[in-house]
């Protein structure tokens, strides 16, 4: 389904839309900037990547997941795929560090959509930084406990 057509249906009202204080924001997981605009709205596009903090306790160094929007001919879950799939996205846990994740983002966007690419990378970096703080605190707490 074309992104333009979907935008016409969805722009006025959708489950991710948040209008507050004159701002039009979005809680769309595929939107890395948080502002609802045509280009940013990832869930209507075919090739968006959302950088999402993981919910719940996971055994990851980074609590970040990459959620990659996918378009398949018929909207089905691919059970044979290595990463967790849903009808509309495949989720990649950022386990091996930020660099591999950034390569995934860069590869998906290539030379096009630099704005989106940069937004995704920026969010990845920021989430990673906040995770680093958390990890540092955890390590310090563990050390203190040992003593």
């Amino acid at each position, binding site marked *: 389904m074309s992104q333009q057509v979907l935008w016409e249906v969805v722009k006025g*009202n959708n489950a991710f839309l948040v209008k507050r204080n004159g701002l039009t924001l979005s809680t769309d997981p595929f939107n890395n900037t948080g502002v609802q605009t045509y280009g940013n709205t990832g869930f209507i596009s075919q090739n968006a990547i959302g950088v999402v903090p993981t919910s719940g306790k996971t055994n990851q160094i980074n609590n970040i997941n990459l959620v990659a929007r996918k378009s398949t001919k018929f909207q089905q879950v691919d059970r044979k795929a290595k990463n967790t799939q849903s*009808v509309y996205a495949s989720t990649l846990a950022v386990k091996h560090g930020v660099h591999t994740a950034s390569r995934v983002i860069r590869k998906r966007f290539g030379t096009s959509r630099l704005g989106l690419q940069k937004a995704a990378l920026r969010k990845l970096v920021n989430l990673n930084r906040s995770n680093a703080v958390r990890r540092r605190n955890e390590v310090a707490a563990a050390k203190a406990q040992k003593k």
Partner: protein
Amino acid sequence: MTSVPLVSVFSADDSTKVTAKHIPLPAVFQTPIRPDIVSFVHTNIAKNRRQAHAVNPQAGMQHSAESWGTGRAVARIPRVSGSGTHRSGQAAFGNQCRKGRMSLPIKVWRRWHRRVNIKQKRHAAASAVAATGIVPLVLARGHRISQVPQIPLVVEDKIESYEKTTDALNFLKRFGAFEDVQKVVSTKVVRAGISKQRGKKYRVRKGPLVVYFNENAKLLKAFRNVPGVEVVNVTRLNLLQLAPGGQLGRFVIWTQSAFAHLDKLFGTYRYASVLKDGYQLLRPLLTNPDLARIINSNQVQEKVQPAKTTTVLHEVQKKNPLRNTKAMDRLNPYARKQRAAAIAAIKANTKGTKKIKKNKALKKASRAAFNKVSAALNDATNAAVQEEQDIKVKYFSVQKGAAQAE
């Protein structure tokens, strides 16, 4: 559409098992999405379930109130007749009055229902069905479908024979639809406003819609008590359920026979509908709405002129090449050589000619002549001045003499 999209039918007991691998998608799912038609039809059809109500026609009018007219230092509004009570003399009847009747009291014969053209209703229903097969629209409506194996979700007819609610719940859990039910449960709120005292205590979200085909299906009872879930027969698809609130993209679970029946119900692009007399699916204005793809296609790019590059004409200060040698050299690299050649030529020319000797005698003679001339000029000037003076003196002395004479 050159190739028809295919859909799998899932086994009711096991969401990983597929009973029928590739069924072609019914043509309804290819209908253009028309939010304008859907919202128009929805706003009108939503009025059809209203029950007539009205205000008591006598309310506020049960007085023999009369206006006191002018001259009594009171407003001219009708006043309650009689005496012996506070109410007497108080204003009555007007909408602005306390205890008066409202302006334009609601009558039972208000036009509560709206009729909508059948074709519009059918187009809206078709569009709404199409929207249930598009994942971003279902997401946009707010359904939780991250665990659902396929959209549109088609399941074998076995679920039509479910009688127990536990079976229904387990089925929903197996197919990832339970997340949507949980959403419904957790967001149940007490309604704001008086309606809560009038039988509408809770505001409950919409969950999955289960569509079945066989009339004797027992699944209605099984799914009845699951919060948020609605069950409907294919032949009675309702726009108010397919696009609640006028918003397209309800999460729908189809049984296999219901899914197959859609072609007969709405028809295809080849054949008009069997069951809706003379109804033909709406054709899209654009068969390929993907503008980006059209613009970047070979057919368009071949005809399109190359992109203009922005040329800035005067980014740097313009230097005049006729006066600025470097600017000239930039334009004409041969200018350097031309210049050198010109200089060489001048030098060559001057080498051959004799030097003109300064003639001293000539100089002296010319100087003498000049002096003579200038002296003569001086004398002449002086003489002229003197002459002028003499005339002046003469004139004035004559005057004096004349005056003296007189």
